[in-house]
C-alpha cells in the first residue's frame, strides 16, 4: 500500500473500530463507580493476612505473585534480547575509535553539570534503596527503587564520567545482578514448596503491620526485584551507551 492509501484505509477502519470500542465501553459502570468484588475483598483482608500496609504490594508480591514473577522475567528476556542484538552487532562492527570523529562526538558536558550530577548520585542511591526496602509499607518497591538505582549510574554518565561508569558497572556485574535477582524470585517461590505449601507461598514470619521487617517474603521479593531491575536497566542503558560511546574517545570530555 502507498502511504496515502494506507492512511485512508486506516482511518476508515479506525472509525469503525473506534465506534465499536466506544460502544463496548458504554457497557462499563460509570467512572468512579466500583462494583468489585476482587479489590474490596482484598482491601478488607490483606493487611490482617499479610501484615503489609501497602495492599498493592501484597497483591503484586503475594496474592498475584506469579504474575510479578512473569513480569520480572519479561524484563529479563527483554534485557537479554537487547544484549544479544547489540552485543552481536558490536562484535561484528568493532572498529577502533578514529581520529576524525569530531563531528560525531557526543555533546560535551560542562563542569557545573558534572559536579551537580556527581553530587546527586549519593542521594539518588539512598532514595532507591529506601524505595526498595519500604515497598511493603508505602508506595514504591523493588521495581521503582531498581529503576531509581539504575538512574544513579546514568547520572555518572551524564556527568561525563563514562570511564568511571565502566569501572562501576562492567557487564559481568550487571549480568550477575540481573540474573541473581531473577533467580532469587524463583528461589523464594521454592521456599513455599520446601515448607510443604504451594509455589510462592509466603511462609516466613509475617511480623506486625508497619514494621520494616514484616510481611514475610514480600520485602525479600522486593530486594530480588530491586537487584534484577537495577541490573537490568543499567545493562539496557549501558548497552545503548556502548553503542554511542564506541565513537567517543576517552578523556575527550570537556
Amino acid at each position, binding site marked *: 500500500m502507498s502511504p496515502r492509501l494506507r492512511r485512508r*484505509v*486506516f482511518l476508515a477502519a479506525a472509525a469503525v473500530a473506534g465506534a465499536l470500542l466506544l*460502544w463496548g465501553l458504554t457497557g462499563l459502570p460509570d467512572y468512579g463507580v466500583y462494583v468489585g468484588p*476482587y479489590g474490596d475483598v482484598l482491601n478488607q483482608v490483606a493487611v490482617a493476612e499479610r501484615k503489609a500496609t501497602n495492599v498493592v504490594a501484597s497483591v503484586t508480591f503475594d496474592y498475584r505473585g506469579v504474575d510479578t514473577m512473569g513480569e520480572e522475567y519479561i524484563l529479563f*528476556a527483554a534485557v537479554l534480547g*537487547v544484549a544479544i*542484538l547489540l552485543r552481536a552487532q558490536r562484535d561484528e562492527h568493532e572498529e577502533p575509535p578514529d581520529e576524525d570523529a569530531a563531528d560525531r562526538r557526543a555533546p560535551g558536558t560542562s563542569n557545573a553539570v558534572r559536579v551537580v550530577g556527581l553530587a546527586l548520585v549519593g542521594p539518588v542511591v539512598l532514595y532507591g534503596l529506601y524505595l526498595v526496602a519500604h515497598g511493603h509499607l508505602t508506595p514504591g518497591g523493588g521495581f521503582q527503587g531498581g529503576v531509581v538505582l539504575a538512574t544513579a549510574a546514568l547520572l555518572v554518565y551524564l556527568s561525563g564520567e563514562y570511564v568511571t561508569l565502566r569501572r562501576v558497572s562492567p557487564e559481568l556485574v550487571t549480568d550477575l545482578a540481573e540474573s541473581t535477582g531473577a533467580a532469587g524470585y*524463583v528461589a523464594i517461590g521454592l521456599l513455599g514448596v520446601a515448607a510443604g505449601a504451594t509455589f510462592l507461598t509466603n511462609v516466613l514470619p509475617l511480623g506486625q503491620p508497619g514494621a520494616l521487617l514484616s510481611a514475610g517474603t514480600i520485602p525479600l521479593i522486593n530486594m530480588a526485584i530491586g537487584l534484577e531491575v537495577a541490573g537490568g536497566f543499567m545493562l539496557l542503558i549501558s548497552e545503548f551507551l556502548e553503542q554511542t560511546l564506541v565513537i567517543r574517545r576517552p578523556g575527550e570530555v570537556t
Partner: protein
Amino acid sequence: MDALPALPVAVPLLVAAALVGLAPVCPRRVADAIALAAAAGVTVLCLLLLARSFDAPVVYWFGDWTPREGIALGVAFAIDPVGAALATLAGVLATAALTFSWRIFEAVRTLHHGLMLVFLAGIVGFCLSGDLFNMFVFYELFSVAAYALAGYQTTDPGSVRGALNFALTNSVGAIFVLAGIALLYGRTGALNLAQLGQSLATGPADRLVVVAFLLLMVGFFVKAAVVPFHFWLADAYALAPTVVGVIFAGVVSELGLYAVARVYWTVFSAPLAGVEGLTGVLLVGAVATALLGGVMCVLQHHLARMLAYATVSHVGLTLAGFALLSPAGAAGAVLYLVTDGLVKGALFITVGIVDHHLRDIDERRLQGRGRHLLWAGALLVVGAFGLAGAPPFGTFLGKALMEEAALEAGHPWLIGLFVVVAALTSAALLRATGRVFLGLGPRQGPAPRGPDEAAVRHPHVHATQVAPAVLLLAAALAIGLAPGLTEAVQKAGDHFSDRPAYAAAVLEGAGEHGPAAPRPPPHLAGPALWALVSGLGGLGLALVALFPDRLPGDLRGRLARASGPAAAALRGLHAGQIGDSVTWLVVGMAGFGAMLALVTR
C-alpha cells in the same frame, strides 16, 4: 501438596537465570547440555501433568490462596489435557530444536539458551494458566523472548525487519488483549477464568461482553496469524534461525487459537451460547486463512517461507475445527494442532539441514543440488504427507474428527476446504522436493553455480541434526496409531468445553469428572477417501508445476494469464511492510467487530 504443576515453569526460569549469571565461566558444551536437559525435563513434567489431568483438572493455587466463597484471591493453574498437551508439544519441539542446534549454530551464546528457556517457560505457563491476566503475562513473556530470538540472526538483514514487524504488530495485539481484560474486569471484578465465566453466566450477551470478546479474539488472532492479521508472520518465521523457527511454526501460532478457544469456553460460552451466527463469523476467518495461506504457500520458492505459509493455512483449518463450537470440533482441532505441530517441526528442521549444507534455501537456485541429500528429500516427502493429513499420521485422525464434527454441525462443505488446502500445501512441498532433490522441472531463475563447494566442505550430516526430524515425524505417526487415542481425545474435548464442570473444579475443588458419554468411534472410511483425494490432488498439482510443458499449450497459456497478475497482486500485498500489518489489523478488528455486532444483535 506437591509442586509438580509449578515446576515446568519454575525450573526453566531458574535454569535460564543461572545460565546467564554463570555465562562467563560456563563452557559452551556444558551450557548446551544444561539447556537441553532443562527442556527435556520440562517435557517430562508436562507429560506427567498430561497423564494426571485426564481424570480431573489439576488445579494449583499459587501461594495457597484457595478461593473464598467463589472469589479467587490468587492465581491458579487449571490444567486440563488440552493445555497440558500443548505445553508438552512446546517442550518436545524445544528439545528437538536444541538437539538440532548441538552441531550447527556455532555462534550461539549462553544468553541465547537462556532466552530459549524463558521462551519455553512462557509458553508452558500460558497453556497451564487458569487466570486471564496471568495468561496475558505469560503471553507477553514468550512474545518478548520470541521477538528477540526472531531478530537474532544478524547475518540476514531481513530477519531484523521481520522481527520488527513481528514485535510491533504483536504488541498491538497484546494491547487489544489487555483492553479486553480491562473491560471484563470492570464488569465482573474478576480475573480468574472460572470466576469470570460464572459472573457472566447470569447476564446477557450485551455490548460489553461482545466487545470484550472481540478485543480478546482479535488480540489472540494476531498471534495465531488468522487473516487479515497474518502479514507479519512469513518474514518473522522464515528468516528466524532454524532452532527458533521450529518452535514458532510448530506451536506459537496455535497458541493464539488455543487462547481464543479456552477463553470462549470458560468465560463466554454461557452468554454467547444462543448466538446463532458466531460459528459463521469464525468460519469466515478460518476459510480466508486456510485458502490464502494455501495459495501463498504454493507461490513461495523460499522453503522456510513455504512452511511459514503452510502454518498460516493450517491455522485456518484448526480454527475451522474450533469454530464449530462443539466438543467434537474442539477435540479434532486439538489433535490436529498437536500432530500438525510435530510434522511442521520436523519439516522446519529438515529445511534447516538443507540450508546448512547447501547454503541456500531457494527452491529455484537449489534445483538438482540436493541429489546427494536424498534422504532429506525423503523426509520432506513423508512430512508433506503428514501435512496433508494422510493416514496413519495423527493429523489424519484429527482431521477425521473435525470432518465428522463439521457434518454434525451441518457444514459438510468444510470437508471440501480441508481437501483443497491439504492438496495446496502438500503440492508446494512436493514440487520443491522434486525440484531440489531430483532436479525435476524447467529451470527458473539464475542457473546454479557450478559444483557446490559448500556441500563439499560439509559432507557429513550429524545424527544430532537428522534424529530430531525423524523422531518428530515418528511421534506424529505414533500418535495416529496409538490405541484408545480417539476416546481420550474426545474425552479431552468434552472436558475442555464443559464450563460448569471447569468452574466447579477451579472454584470449589470439585473432584473427578463424571464418566464420559459413550460415543461411536469415528467413521474413518470417508476421511481416508478424502485424504487420498487431497494427496493425489497435491501430487497432481506438483507434477503440473514441475512439468508444465506436458499440458496442452492453450491451457497452459490460459493458466499463466489467469494466475500471473493475481499472484503478483498477492505477493505485493504481502510485501512485509510494518504499517500495512498494523493497518490490516485494525481493518480486521473492524470487520470481525461488525460481523459480531450483527450476529449478536
